[in-house]
């Protein structure tokens, strides 16, 4: 049955026909991060797809993947476009290189997973936390619960990890 829910006042609609996304978000709802592993070439992929982007095989299995990585790039949004985000500026959009499969299958490829910077309980980060994060920051995955059966993956600062002395941030604060 389709999952329809509201997140930050924004309607989300997970359609039954979208079987790969249904499977992906089912794991997220259990605060568990799973990706498809190709049944032929063995590579993981993100976001969920019907076929493998490297070998086109439709065979895959969902496997648990560690939600840890490093900020590859980011944007800090001050002028929100969507009404849902206007009350939460500035917010960060993070593109995170997972440690898993980093630099594979070619040196410039990685599983790059998008998310916002949030608090450990999945709330959009306050401004003082936003200012601590830049390219190179070590982050760990957390989840924002949306509804029974639906949560979306997010990123928070990995306080247990060795952090760069000064992550790279845009020069104008």
């Amino acid at each position: 049955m389709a999952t329809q829910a509201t997140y930050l006042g924004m309607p989300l609609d997970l359609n039954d026909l979208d079987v790969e996304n249904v499977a992906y978000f089912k794991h997220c709802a259990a605060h568990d991060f799973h990706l498809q592993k190709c049944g032929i070439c063995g590579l993981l992929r993100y976001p969920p797809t019907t076929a493998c982007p490297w070998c086109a095989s439709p065979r895959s299995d969902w496997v648990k993947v560690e939600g840890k990585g490093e900020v590859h790039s980011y944007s800090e949004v001050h002028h929100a476009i969507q009404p849902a985000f206007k009350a939460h500026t500035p917010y960060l959009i993070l593109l995170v290189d997972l440690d898993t499969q980093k630099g594979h299958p070619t040196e410039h490829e990685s599983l790059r997973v998008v998310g916002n910077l949030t608090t450990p309980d999945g709330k959009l980060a306050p401004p003082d936390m936003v200012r601590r994060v830049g390219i190179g920051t070590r982050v760990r995955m957390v989840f924002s619960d949306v509804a029974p059966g639906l949560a979306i993956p997010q990123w928070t600062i990995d306080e247990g990890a060795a952090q760069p002395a000064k992550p790279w941030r845009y020069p104008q604060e």
Partner: protein
Amino acid sequence: MTMPAETDATSPKHLRDKYAIVGVGETTYTRGSGKTTRALGTWAVRNAIEDAGLKPSDVDGILSYQSRDSTFSTFIAGDLGIRPNFYMDVFGGGSSTEALVGMAMGLIEAGMCKVVVIFRAMNGFSQVRIGGTGARAVAPVSGDMLHSRAYGWQSAGQMFSLTFMRHMYDYGTRPEQVAAVKAIHSEHASNNPKAFYKQRFTVEDVLKSRIICKPLHLLDCCVETDNGTALVVTSAERARDCRHPRTLIRGVVGRCNKPRTDMHYQHGPISTVAGKYAREILWPNAGVGPEDVDITGSYDAFTFTTMLQLEDYGFCKKGDGGQYVSDGTIRLGGRRPNNTSGGHLCEGYTHGLNMVIENVRQLRHDADDSCPMGPDGKRRHTYDYREGGCRQVKKCEVSANMGWANPGTGSAMVMRNE
């Protein structure tokens, strides 16, 4: 000019100099056109056909591009009395112009039609905002958008910023270097009576304008406007009978992609854009290289898109884009001016078509600036590029247009005069 000897092209049968752009036309660049996209498209197509010295009955192909924000080509054709032997409306914005020119060449080459008009009609300010505000901002989030819009990652600026930011990190590109693109395009626009923004801005103005989403300030972003724009493509032979000197098409590459076209984020380096791949088709097809080009039209949805493309098409060394766009090269009077109309940042937002129109006029030596008109009806260009003055490039024989859909997808075209 003397063209280099034949070089290897991608296809064994390239179409270098066999086709021409013979007509260009547009409506006023406004915010609040007071017209339907159907009316805007009709005016633009009519103006382009008239500019070519043709009649609507000479046109038998019509192509358009849109994002559910415009009128289908059959309405425009019917309203102008064009009987198409072929029509097609494709989905998409930036990068469509050059791609459709390539399709028009293919249609004529295949014998399916003889004269093709391409248009883009949009109320980009007063109806459907490209930035995604209004109706687009509140639509339900589903499918692939669960991985993007759910994170407040929706508008073009938000989507592309990760690429822009990483370029600064990888190569030390500085905000003031990129801001020079806006400053220079605004100087060009001040010599373009059609431009929506004719005011000149400085680098400091850009850096002082409010942050939209880092690294973009308000003035790093283009101006959304309402307008119709159109081009007429036909064979080089047929072009001899048209009104203006011929603008010949040397080579086209259409909607060329990086690996993993999903915004290219899985396949890095993300500070490299589609131009790296497109240039391998463009320059061999055109039989020229970046050094042969006199004027560029590098898509300026944002200051950064201009820089990234000029870099990846090879106008400078990889990583030197910031230097290239800020050292005077791309300014009128410089070695290779870019977007002499003011482009999307200042003239108006058309998803690329106005940048091709501008280069056609430049190649005809007929930039519509404020220079005095001679008794033969042609402007006497002064090459005085001060505010309100000339914007014709003095030596202008070969142009390159580079269209941008997103960091992972781009199109390009080289044209020349005779």
